[in-house]
């Protein structure tokens, strides 16, 4: 049985049993062998291929995601993200827990899972209850494609997550908000459970003067793609707000308006807002009168369909909620600065984001951004695409979290790098041992001046 039936037993006992069983399975050595890991990874691939329609369906119901977006962001990334070879050493951590988030509910569950399995662990996936169709999909399908005794899906709400954290895990990966991230880490501290936190942030996008019309159009395409084509802006790496020079702003806004019209000819090309609560949150941003008066495009909201049209705002007050909290929605504030270089100072005054974007051909500006700001990643002249590149680590810093994955980093995230040193009985250095006298100390000192350690290892052939 791959999933837990919530109503049968009190949660405590149920999870105690679950964790105990998984530990037994792990201790049995079942997840260690290369064959098992490869079979799980192949199972994941088959799941994504064979159940593609089911995934699209679930994502459509949960988020109104268009299948193109679903494919690009959720089905695809796990396919390229898992590492090519699983190694027997370094060693698995043991039994790990993965919390996924509601906005990329398949991707954020299965991608880390592929890393955990490649590294030889047993795993529990706790999908977000805010994406119930996807959650149900995972509960139904994961046991069919993966080893149901070593990989479990536990669904349910926040109380389930809390209860799971009462136990010791060998690693926990949490993707979600800072508030919950704090709770997770606090609970993990009781058991010395190592954690990785993938949190949110306001990802800024600097837009420099672009001389050619073609460049400007490309930039606008990519900005729109990174905002409204990505779960309607409900993504940790979506562009949160823009920074542009005062004089460029009107040109950029016109271009954004015309391109938005061309792209979003049908409402179904945009995901909807997750639920009532988030809809109210976003509508609430616009309820602030000072913010409402800064709207230069869009602004219409539909509570029945939980949709908000692409909305542009010009210079909402910096102390308004929309400029202090992560937006996570289809509202795009445009903040103007006198000189584009001033945007760097602006960025530094805010918490470190998951991603910084900049559209510019100015190499000096690029260098300054890299050197003077800190973020999970920096991408020039595009956005979001860094997520699909499995040769670079994905993760935050400071308030946007810690721990990195994707590609080989996923494998490393769920591994313990055990240092192993092999010595022979030959070659004993007498001066290693007491009783100490001056001649021995002298020898040691002499040896140390020539870098004893390297010399030592070189002599016994262990130097790398």
């Amino acid at each position, binding site marked *: 049985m791959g999933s837990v039936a919530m109503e049968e037993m009190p949660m405590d006992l149920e999870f105690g049993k679950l964790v105990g069983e998984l530990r037994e399975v792990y201790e049995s*050595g079942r997840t*260690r062998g290369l064959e098992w890991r490869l079979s799980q990874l192949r199972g994941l691939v088959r799941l994504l291929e064979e159940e593609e329609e089911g995934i699209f369906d679930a994502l459509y119901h949960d988020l109104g995601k*268009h*299948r*193109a977006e679903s494919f*690009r962001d959720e089905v695809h990334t796990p*396919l390229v993200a898992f590492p090519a070879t699983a190694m027997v050493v370094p060693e698995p951590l*043991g039994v790990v827990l993965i919390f996924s988030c509601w906005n990329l509910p398949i991707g954020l569950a299965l991608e880390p899972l592929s890393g955990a399995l490649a590294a030889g662990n047993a795993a529990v996936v706790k999908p977000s209850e805010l994406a119930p169709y996807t959650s149900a999909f995972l509960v139904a399908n994961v046991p069919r494609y993966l080893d149901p005794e070593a990989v479990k899906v536990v669904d349910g709400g926040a109380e389930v997550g809390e209860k799971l954290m009462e136990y010791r895990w*060998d690693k926990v990966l949490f993707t979600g908000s800072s508030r919950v991230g*704090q709770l997770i*880490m*606090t609970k993990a*501290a*009781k058991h*010395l459970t*190592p954690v990785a936190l993938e*949190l949110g942030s306001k990802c800024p996008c600097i837009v420099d003067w672009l001389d050619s019309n073609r460049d400007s159009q490309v930039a606008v395409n990519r900005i*729109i*793609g990174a905002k409204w*084509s990505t779960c309607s802006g409900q993504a940790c790496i979506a562009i949160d707000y823009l920074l542009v020079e005062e004089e460029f702003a009107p040109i950029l806004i016109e271009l954004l308006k015309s391109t938005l019209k061309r*792209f*979003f000819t049908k409402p179904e*090309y945009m995901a909807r807002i997750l639920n009532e609560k988030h809809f109210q949150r976003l509508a609430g941003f616009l309820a602030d009168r000072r913010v409402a008066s800064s709207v230069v495009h869009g602004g219409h909201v539909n509570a029945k369909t939980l949709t908000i049209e692409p909305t542009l705002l010009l210079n909402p007050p910096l102390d308004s909620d929309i400029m202090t909290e992560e937006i996570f929605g289809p509202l795009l504030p445009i903040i103007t600065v006198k000189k584009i270089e001033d945007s760097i100072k602006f960025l530094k005054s805010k918490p470190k984001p998951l991603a910084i974007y900049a559209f510019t051909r100015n190499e000096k500006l*690029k260098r300054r951004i*890299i050197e*003077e700001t800190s973020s*999970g990643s*920096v*991408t*020039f*002249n595009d956005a979001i*695409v*860094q997520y699909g*590149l499995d*040769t*670079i*680590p994905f993760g935050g*810093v*400071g308030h946007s979290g*810690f721990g990195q994955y994707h590609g080989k980093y996923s494998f490393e995230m769920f591994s*313990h790098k*055990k*240092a*192993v*040193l092999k*010595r*022979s*009985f030959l070659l004993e250095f007498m001066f*290693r*041992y*007491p*009783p*100490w006298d001056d001649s021995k*100390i002298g020898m*040691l000192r002499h040896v*140390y001046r020539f870098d*004893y*350690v390297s010399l030592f*290892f070189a002599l016994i052939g262990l130097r*790398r």
Partner: protein
Amino acid sequence: MEAVAAAAEAREQLRASFASGRTRPAAWRAAQLRGLLRMAAEMEAEICAALRADLAKPRTESYVHEISLVTSSCKFALKNLKKWMKPNKVPAGMLTFPSAARVSAEPLGVVLVISAWNYPFLLAVDPVIGAIAAGNAVVLKPSEVAPATSALLADLLPRYVDGSCVRVVEGGIPETTALLEQKWDKIFYTGNGKVGRIVMSFAAKHLTPVVLELGGKCPVVVDCNVDLHVAAKRIASGKWGCNSGQACISPDYIITTKCFAPKLLDALKRVLDKFYGKEPLRSPDLSRIVNSNHFNRLQALMDEETVADKVVFGGESDEQQLKIAPTLLLDVPLDSTIMKEEIFGPLLPIITVDKIHESFGVINSMSKPLAAYLFSNDSMLKQQFEMNVSAGGMIFNDTAIHLTNPHLPFGGVGESGMGAYHGTFSFDAFAHKKAIVDRSFLGEATARYPPYTPAKLKILKGVLKGNPVAMVQAIAGFPGGA
């Protein structure tokens, strides 16, 4: 309140120093590392004196285990600094073609290092070396349980490194708590699991990542096919030659077969006699127990009812000097306190099993240690040990020395900790690896954007699956139009 004010002030000053960019250039970092090198060389006598005051540590141990390791750590960092600071280009892949990608290490900012009392010089300075090499500003909180070394560090560091970016804050629980309440970009803690949990809980409030270098019961499995004399020496050296067993990687207990135990015991007794003489409590080469708390703790471990009659060698102690003689115990019950807690002292229990393989079960019934050791010439056994025993690190046919190899990560797993350092790993522990992707304006794939059509989806799928025809189509702007 004074402690809180001091902690806040230290944090603020360092935050400003870091923000000024002072710690970023390679030249600054190298200058600090050279300063630390000079400090270790010029102040050797003073450092040894402080260690002798705190722990009665023999001069040789002070030099070999603390000063020389700090020196080689500095040298290794100086040698590799440029390489570490250089961004690492990585393949950019077809999806973002054309583009360039690299991973660049940047400092985390202002970090807190809390060190332990048993290697009070090494465990304070070594993490600081990593923090500086990675370009951070650092607050060091040395252990108050080693007061002479703490005072020495507070005095020396400002003289040898840039005091605006590297600060020492001395003190006990109130000062440490005040520091932990501040927001840091990383906290590096060496010590025990109980305090480790407290450190992590504080860190959680600010979402601060941590490295916890903790302890555990490091087992030594001794097979019968070994060069016994050498094995005994290496075990003794790792146990009593390391601060009288007060080291996180000291062998905690031995497991061997019932038939081999007498031979092993004999070999150990002979070696101990050779190392420390007939009156070990008077040997200048044996460290003392750090304080009366720990002395009493160790005495109690020995005096426990089910344990007291298992002492087969040693057992003498001198409360005045705070010294306990190297002590061997045979077959203490597994549920005795000495087998449930980390010993951290000169008591060495020997547990016997019928077959050597049973040792794995004993080890795995306890929490994962910082290090596990196996003395054997049986390659099958070694392989199984490597596969089935989890520990921070592992050595075959020796003890403790893996920490001297800068190419090996040094850190725990499970109860013995999280994160690692030494060598490159020290740099990595205090750096953020920032991914940088540089895309061109060319290669605009309109298939990416709405309005979505089946034709576009087909091309997208092809691209994502690595189909070269689809890639060309995508880059050429198919299917055309929006």
